[in-house]
């Protein structure tokens, strides 16, 4: 696991964003430059003074865009230069309460949009930046402003926003249809085509109806949508019907990601109740994949280690888990498909992972 949060000491009064550099070559005014490095920590010096970061080697930080928070005594690695999966958390509030939520929401909101926007402007060329929460569109105006201002200044960047699509209105359609939004995709969870089942899973009555409205607005805006469905004991048998629904009503989506459960957050304590072992019965997922693919919907499997998927479907199981939270079982070392594999979440129980794998 790659640590994203590190203890740190800093001169400055309030939080700020800077880029860490180990050499002076090609540096800019927002950069903090290494002045002393050791295996257990490094000292960088920038416009707002010194920052001392614990426990990471300086060369692993070179180019990272970090948020320095002196009062809390830490730095947060917002955008790591070598990684293809960087996600900015814009709020921890949410208006849904999904049974398996991997990042249970909080009541309070700390507005960091301005700092995050600064980070985006410093991002390396062409980076795809993830935005997550909580529910980012609870602060829709702040969110869209961040996206638009960033893309106006940095048209090379792209955004992928995870949202429950409960807050898009007809009045947003023209705005979301602007050309800058070609560089934005929306990852939207949908758990069943039956309203009651979906509402039950997301813990909000009327969520399905609201989601359909939101998707309609996105469809009319020509927005890029990635649907996401987590596999649960509750919805596994609803997968074939959901695939029919996606093919009939949501064929415009760029992709449909079928995701295996993450052993964290609420799911950790409800594992027995929620987890569906696709190795025991792949049928409903196979039928869903075939139905969706038949109609040209690009269906794919997230968080499905390749060896746990029948050979014919393996090409659909992609390396979906971000580098900083991915691990493999010991037996995976001799697997020939490891580089194309999702592996396991860092927090997946080791015993289970070891039992699941059969190196290919």
């Amino acid at each position, binding site marked *: 696991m790659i640590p994203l949060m590190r203890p740190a000491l800093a001169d400055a009064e309030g939080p700020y964003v800077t880029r860490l550099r180990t050499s002076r070559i090609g540096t800019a005014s927002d950069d903090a430059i290494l002045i002393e490095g050791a295996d257990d920590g490094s000292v960088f010096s920038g416009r707002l003074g010194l920052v001392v970061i614990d426990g990471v080697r300086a060369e692993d930080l070179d180019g990272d865009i970090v948020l320095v928070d002196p009062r809390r005594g830490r730095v947060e690695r917002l955008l790591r230069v070598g990684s293809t999966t960087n996600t900015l958390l814009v709020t921890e509030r949410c208006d849904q309460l999904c049974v398996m939520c991997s990042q249970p929401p909080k009541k309070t909101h700390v507005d960091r949009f301005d700092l995050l926007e600064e980070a985006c402007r410093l991002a390396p060329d062409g980076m795809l930046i993830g935005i997550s929460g909580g529910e980012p569109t609870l602060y829709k105006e702040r969110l869209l402003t961040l996206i638009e201002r960033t893309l106006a200044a940095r048209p090379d960047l792209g955004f992928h926003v995870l949202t429950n699509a409960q807050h898009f209105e007809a009045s947003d359609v023209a705005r979301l249809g602007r050309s800058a939004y070609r560089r934005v995709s929306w990852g939207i969870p949908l758990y069943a085509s039956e309203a009651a089942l979906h509402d039950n899973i997301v813990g909000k009555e009327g969520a399905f109806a609201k989601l359909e409205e939101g*998707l*309609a607005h996105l469809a*009319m805006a020509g927005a890029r949508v990635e649907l996401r469905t987590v596999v649960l004991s509750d919805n596994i048998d609803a997968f074939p019907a959901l695939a029919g629904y996606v093919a009939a*009503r949501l064929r415009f989506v760029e992709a449909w990601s079928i995701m295996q459960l993450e052993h964290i957050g609420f799911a950790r304590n409800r594992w027995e109740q929620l987890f569906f072992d696709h190795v025991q019965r792949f049928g409903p997922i196979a039928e869903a994949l075939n*139905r969706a693919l*038949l*109609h040209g919907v690009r269906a794919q499997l997230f968080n499905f280690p390749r060896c746990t998927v029948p050979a014919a479907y393996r090409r659909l199981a992609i390396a979906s888990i971000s580098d900083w939270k991915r691990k493999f079982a010991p037996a995976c070392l001799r697997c020939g498909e490891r580089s194309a594999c999702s592996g396991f979440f860092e927090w997946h129980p080791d015993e289970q992972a070891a039992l699941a794998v059969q190196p290919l």
Partner: protein
Amino acid sequence: MTFTPLRLRAIGGESEKALFVNDAGRFFLGSSAFLDRMDLEQLSAGDLAFLRAGGHVVERGDALGAAAHARGVADRIARAGPLDYLILVPTLRCNLSCSYCQVSRVNENQGGHDWSDDTLHAVLALLDRLDAAHVKIEFQGGEPTLRPDLIRAVIDRCGRFERAEFVICTNLQRVDDEILALFDRPDVFVSTSLDGDLSTHTRNRTGTAEATSAFLGNLRMLAERHGPTKVSALPTIDPNNPPDIDALLDAYVDLGIDSVFLRPINYQGFARKRHAASREQGDGWRGYYESFVRRIIERNWADRGRVLEETYLSIALRRIFQPGSERHVDLRNPNPMGIDYVVIDHDGAVYPTDEARMLARSGVVDLSIGNVAEGWGGPTFDLLNANSTNQFDPDCKRCAYQPFCGRDLVDDLARYGRIDIQRRETAFCRRHLHLFDLAFRLVYSDDDAIRYSLARWLRLPGEPAAFGQRLA
């Protein structure tokens, strides 16, 4: 409640009367009982739920249903992007004289039928002006390998593109080191004609067994040297004298080629006189085509290790199920002319399609829309594009297959000299009605062998429970 317009076509037996298709190309097979209920306006709650789920009914307030329908209709409309596909004819000379040659080729040693220096420079200048990041360039003839220098000059000029793919359409009669060096490039693909077994190929094309052997030797050498993805081959079928199906398939399978694009003789060029019957494709052709498809289904089922396909049927299936996934320029709607692809002839004249070039060569009608040095446009170009859609054709707009079908003006001109004869009276229409009838009979078959082949042709990992829905 609003109905999205449904079109009907009888394809089933007694109890399953008709295929229902809406403007977005969504379809189901309805029973005669359902047909009666619809006729009497006595739809059940179950009918309505089914129609709503399938996008055949959009109720007031169903914003997503309305959006899905709008997007679905839009998906059926072909969009022509920037010019990124060129068919180049560096020479009209050829070292063969096939009985049904479509382009009125000239003899190998005849002068004045190759690109001039000016034409070459104009082609290269055109390449420099292209906006596309990816280009596909096809060399036609004549026999383009008679001028490897011209092919090389074009390929060398394409280095600036993110991706460039070259297809050399050749009879593979002579492959010397210079030509082989071109074929060896990973971005070069070879397309050739293989009419079946040795005797059929000799009769149709080469004239002598020795020439056929030389061709087959070259074809085999290429397939072995680079694997089957390097070479694609097409048979031209004389419906009055078609080859034995298994012999034809074996000839392809032997070379490791699994996709066969079965084409009847094109009513073009020399074929207009020597194969006058090719103006219409009769029941003989359609029967052969269907037997061919049935046979590959059987063979696929018997040997799961190898998936044979008839290319055009696979294209039709993808147009039914996966709009937008297919860019076959001979079957699309609208079919824009001279926009995303053009043909540049040996004399620099620009045509909208290869068949348009053939028509001009045969003296039927000159459909050239300009020349490579000065550009193209003007009245012919405008007239063709104004008529390039099947959307408003009185026959097509009632046809269940309109969302899947295309429009081929040049084919109509070739056969009938005009484009305004009733659509259903054209060979194009009859061919595609038959093709889609066949496709839907396969879609609604419960035969495991058929379902297996369908899934493979549609590139699915497994077989879905059903390819099409039914309403009892």
